[in-house]
């Protein structure tokens, strides 16, 4: 049975990775399972300098989902390389570095540096809805996105380059095509859906920064639809995510056209979710006589 897939130059032993921002830098999960089982680990978004993040409350629960506005709190590029990466390298799995910047120059500086470090892929977070001057303008304006990708692609020479798409656009295919045209090796999708929840007793937003990003099963049908649309629009591989809790959910994305899947919010509810999903996929393939996971990619019947 073949579960291995390739995203750009990155060879994954199975299609399952963790989603950025939902797995810390791996440490918190190593006590629950062997992280070497994962196809890849995607780390919390990395900025040039450490970021403090947003005031609390940063999260609230909504029907079958949650809204977050963490504000991209992270240890910064140097912190990641010196404190976090060496630990992650104890595991036999790929490391994807999720990158965010406030300006094109920042994206370039981080990406150029990471291109020569011991990681496997760079994922550009151009869609994070949280920080006012953050990724938002790149992820929802395809001309900005084009400019950014032209610049970053020219410095990312060795590593696989992934563009993480925002769902907060009218037609996500335009952004996927832009990524493909500018030489991205893959797209990952979707980032969180912009959302808001109000407590009617206090008449306040349930999170301090008023609006945030919705994740979890609530967004899954939206994400699956978008993956299917993008699968029909571009040739580069898709990393699908949005509310994946079980192996069935993961297979939905693969049937819609994703080559790889990422597990996000599920890590909060059950720390071994991603391992269960890998095992579940294997079992499904064996019961249904699927010899190669590639036989399922984009296999939804029309």
């Amino acid at each position, binding site marked *: 049975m073949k579960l291995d897939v390739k995203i750009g130059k990155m060879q994954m032993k199975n299609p399952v990775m963790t989603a950025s921002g939902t797995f810390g830098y791996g440490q918190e999960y190593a006590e629950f399972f062997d992280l070497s089982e994962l196809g890849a680990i995607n780390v919390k978004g990395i900025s040039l300098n450490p970021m403090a993040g947003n005031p*609390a409350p940063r999260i609230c629960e909504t029907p079958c989902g949650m809204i977050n506005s963490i504000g991209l709190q992270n240890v910064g590029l140097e912190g990641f390389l010196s404190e976090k990466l060496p630990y992650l390298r104890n595991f036999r799995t790929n490391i994807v570095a999720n990158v965010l910047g406030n300006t094109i120059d920042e994206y370039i500086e981080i990406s150029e540096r990471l291109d020569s470090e011991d990681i496997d892929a760079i994922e550009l977070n151009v869609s994070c809805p949280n920080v006012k001057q953050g990724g938002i303008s790149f992820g929802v304006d395809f001309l900005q996105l084009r400019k950014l990708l032209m610049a970053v692609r020219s410095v990312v020479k060795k590593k696989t380059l992934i563009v993480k798409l925002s769902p907060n656009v009218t037609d996500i295919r335009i952004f996927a095509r832009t990524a493909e045209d500018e030489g991205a090796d893959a797209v990952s999708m979707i980032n969180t859906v912009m959302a808001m929840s109000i407590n009617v007793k206090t008449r306040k937003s349930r999170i301090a920064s008023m609006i945030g990003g919705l994740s979890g099963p609530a967004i899954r049908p939206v994400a699956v639809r978008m993956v299917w649309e993008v699968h029909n629009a571009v040739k580069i591989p898709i990393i699908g995510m949005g509310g994946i809790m079980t192996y069935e959910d993961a297979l939905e994305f693969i049937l819609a056209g994703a080559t790889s899947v990422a597990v996000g919010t599920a890590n909060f509810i059950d720390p071994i979710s991603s391992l269960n999903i890998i095992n579940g996929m294997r079992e499904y393939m064996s019961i249904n006589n699927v010899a190669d996971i590639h036989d399922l990619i984009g296999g939804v019947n029309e």
Partner: protein
Amino acid sequence: MSRSFKAEIIYNREVARNIKLFRIHFLTPAMNPEPGQFYMLQTGQFYDPLLKRPFSIFDADLNELSFLVRETGRGTAILSHKSAGNIIDVIGPLGMSYPICQKQPVIIAGGMGIASLFSLIKRFSERAKVIYGAGTAQDIVYRDEIESTAGDLIISTDDGSAGRKGNVMDFINEFMNGEEDVTVYTCGPGVMLKKVAEFCIRKGIECYVSLEQNMACGLGSCLGCVVRTKNGYQRVCKEGPVFSASDIIWD
């Protein structure tokens, strides 16, 4: 031994107005908690409610854990209606416990704060001086046990229906002789914590507070549960829930 396990509910019974004692026993080997630590308990089925809910360890014996659960919303309502034999997913023990200091312990519990402090009172037993304040007599739990365990106890209620009338701040001075030799441990509503913390900081008394914040993972990975401290934002689930009062930015 894993901090993620399945547990069976042994019983779930009302111990005060709107408060249930929720006793579970683990089906797979689990670790022993320290006073002040907490667990994430599954409430919903099929991801609704989605997230687990945090609860302080109230009491622990061999293979068994108990929690005090006050019904305040959907998740706690579902938990309150679970019955013996139901199985739930649990993660814990999580977070930092109360540091056990050599000085005279003064334990100040406000309302549900007792859930977090009860096991600490048991740990200090007759050494503990306790102030336990609540709204009314109906909100007080385990009065007899606390009375027989602690060395000294002041019960207070806002309406005087049990113990003395007033709030914990009215009685805090009674246990403060030899201030430099006491350590205060406190848990309860935010307003009360702030008053206790400010009192202790003013007087130079060592003080530990247990804080609450909305949580998603309880493990330190989502960065959702932060509070502002002098060392920047810190996670209630990882660096806390117990913090030194002087580290917190109280505003």
